[in-house]
């Protein structure tokens, strides 16, 4: 309460009331350490192991306090006993009756729970069958699609193999290597081309005219047209 008393105020009160009737002495007085020292300062080394002397109560004071406390304790006990008695009177049931009621409640609850469980089980069964149906359908679709994709893949690979086989006649082997080199040296290729605004393409810069690029583009166009028409 008086955690921060002004030391000056204390002196004033002492001077006005005298030392005997000082209201701040005894239990009301608390020394406030951090009015003097910073709050974080530790206990002084010289005071570290000091044990303050226990304050002695005057004998008559102690006797009076003991008497008052005994009285208070007797009153409290009496009130508690009264309340307990009243409560026991209000609850006039034997433990066996209470136990049977609890058992009844429990059996009722179990019955209700079983009923609910049955309902939920029916719903679950329905849902699970539906889900299994959907899953089976999905798997079937997946299998069909996978088979189709596989067939397409095989077809594509066959096409590639066929094209490669056709091309393989033009491959250069160690036997016709000399001829191929001679041919290459005699026929320089130039992939450069110029294009005007009308879309006319002129191939070549220095080498001979080679329609390689044009051919590729034409082939692609044909393929695209065939794909779109079919």
């Amino acid at each position: 309460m008086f955690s921060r008393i002004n030391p000056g105020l204390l002196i004033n009160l002492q001077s006005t009331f005298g030392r005997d009737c000082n209201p701040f002495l005894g239990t009301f007085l608390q020394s406030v350490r951090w009015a003097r020292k910073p709050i974080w300062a530790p206990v002084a080394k010289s005071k570290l192991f000091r044990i303050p002397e226990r304050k002695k109560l005057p004998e008559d004071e102690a006797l009076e306090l003991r008497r008052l406390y005994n009285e208070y304790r007797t009153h409290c006990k009496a009130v508690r006993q009264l309340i307990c008695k009243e409560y026991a009177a209000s609850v006039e049931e034997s433990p066996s009756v209470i136990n049977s009621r609890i058992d009844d409640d429990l059996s009722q609850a179990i019955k209700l729970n079983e009923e609910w469980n049955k309902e939920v089980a029916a719903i679950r069964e329905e849902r699970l069958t539906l889900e299994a149906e959907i899953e089976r359908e999905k798997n079937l679709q997946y299998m069909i699609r996978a088979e189709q994709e596989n067939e397409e893949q095989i077809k594509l690979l066959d096409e590639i193999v066929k094209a490669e086989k056709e091309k393989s006649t033009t491959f250069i082997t160690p036997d016709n290597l000399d001829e191929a080199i001679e041919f290459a040296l005699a026929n320089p290729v130039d992939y450069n081309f110029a294009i005007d605004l009308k879309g006319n393409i002129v191939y070549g810069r220095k080498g001979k005219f080679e329609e390689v690029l044009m051919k590729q583009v034409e082939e692609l166009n044909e393929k695209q047209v065939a794909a779109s028409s079919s």
Partner: protein
Amino acid sequence: MPTYELAILLRSMPKEEIVSVLKRATTSIFDKGGIIRKIENLGFLDTPYKIKNHGMVHKQANYFVVQFDSPPTSLADLAEEYDRDVDVIRKRFYKVEPPKFVECTIADEMKPAPYRLEVQKMIEEGKSKKERKFKYNSGLNYYPFQK
């Protein structure tokens, strides 16, 4: 085996030597288990910059392109072999991708802006968006103070 393209630059030399160098290069592909699809000569051209290799400066080179199939593991060996060849100035391997078909839309793109489908869509989108009006939350349908 994937198809690769070897772009190779040979130093300027007589035709017989070129033939022998090319033969050397191609036979090493065959030795690695490769197949050669075609050999092309791009001609004797100026290099884009001075190239120094094997202690000589080159400003012109014989450009060749060799298309071949070979296992990918053999590429490093081939590269090393060509690096050691004194007649080869530069070499580089490229993976051959099938040419992509691109649809020509230049006629559509050359149209004036309002005729382009893209622009028309944008205009429609802009029209569909309503302008946000600030609400005063005063419960009145007019602004009670002087503006």
